[in-house]
């Protein structure tokens, strides 16, 4: 019996990516079953699957003490590869196949505006919260503000400005909260904010900016909108890394 278990573990671990296919396949099958049985199809199966993924990631982290959710379990290490940036970006690019070029052209300008506005607004909100919590130095306030943009902009800004590692960790956490909330919340707010056409999807992607959040949120709302939202979202982190440690930091310093 112990030998059988040994064989099983060894095979599943050595073929991590394949095991990840099975894991995600089972998780989605269960989610679609829940969707049909419990919600009569009202709550999209993919939305349930993404939420369940996050819940499992929580318990995975609780159990292993690691930072990669279920992927810290040796058996499920392949999930980190399947859900990593390489496959994610590859699949996002693939969704663009057959997207409507004229819709993108039409929303091009407002899409660009939404990116800059999205960075500035999130930064300002994060900075105000940092102030409310008693941070008064421009470097910390700017780093936390940048973290409210995305969890990449935060540490990039913090490192550039020489912020303390505790503040950088906070900025990453703020960005993580944002991305998790966008993933889970988008399907629920979508009807309220008119998120049902390519143009609003581009605006949404530009305002939210978190690639993983937007990717998950749109997948759970309407997969047809994915290419439009993802397109603007991928420019957001770059814009944030550009604006936060420079113009936005200088403004904060001038005000404080």
């Amino acid at each position, binding site marked *: 019996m112990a030998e059988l278990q040994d064989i099983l573990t060894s095979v599943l671990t050595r073929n991590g990516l394949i095991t990840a*296919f099975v*894991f995600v*396949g089972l*998780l*989605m099958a269960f989610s679609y079953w829940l969707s049909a049985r419990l919600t009569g199809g009202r709550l999209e199966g993919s939305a349930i699957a*993404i939420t369940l*993924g*996050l819940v499992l*990631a*929580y318990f*995975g*982290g609780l159990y292993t003490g690691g*930072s*990669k*959710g279920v992927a810290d379990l040796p058996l499920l290490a392949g999930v*980190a590869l*399947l*859900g*990593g940036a390489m496959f*994610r*970006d590859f*699949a*996002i*690019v*693939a969704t663009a*196949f057959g997207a409507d*070029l004229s819709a*993108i052209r039409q929303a091009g300008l*407002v*899409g660009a505006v*939404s990116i800059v506005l*999205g960075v500035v*607004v*999130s930064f300002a*909100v*994060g900075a105000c*919260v*940092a102030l409310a919590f008693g941070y008064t130095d421009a470097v910390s306030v700017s780093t936390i503000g940048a973290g*409210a943009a995305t969890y990449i902009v935060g540490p990039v800004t913090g490192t550039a400005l020489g912020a303390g590692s505790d503040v950088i960790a*906070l900025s990453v*956490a*703020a960005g*993580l*909260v944002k*991305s*998790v909330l*966008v993933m889970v*919340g988008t399907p629920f*707010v979508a009807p309220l904010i008119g998120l049902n056409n390519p*143009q*609003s999807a581009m605006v949404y992607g530009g*305002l939210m900016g978190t*690639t993983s959040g937007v990717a998950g949120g749109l997948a759970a709302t309407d*997969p047809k909108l994915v290419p439009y939202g*993802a397109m603007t979202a*991928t420019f957001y982190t*770059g*814009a944030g*890394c*550009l604006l936060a440690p420079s113009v936005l930091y200088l403004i904060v310093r001038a005000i404080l």
Partner: protein
Amino acid sequence: MVIFGVALLAVCMLAGMISGEAIGRLIGVDANVGGVGIAMLLLIMLSNLSRERWQLNVTTESGVRFWSAMYIPIVVAMAAKQNVIAAVSSGWLAVIAGVLAVVVSFALVPVLSRIGRRDG
């Protein structure tokens, strides 16, 4: 052949990533600026062009469509590997900053969409 589609997709992604990296270097930012977005534009232009000039073979197309269909499972895997513990247990500052940023951004979506529609 299916691999032609997969290779076409891969070329678009790499070309986009390289451009994004180069733009980042040019403007002095330590990040990939819009690499995925540029890759998507490339693929969209190729697929729009192909309808007029050269028809992509159905099998070739299926190489791209497979990865497009794998998108949601990949996102589910991405969700399952997030550092949710850090997001939840980092204290109120991070939670409030994250939540407020999302709420304000959500609220701005209809405002900007409306402006865009008026211009268009």
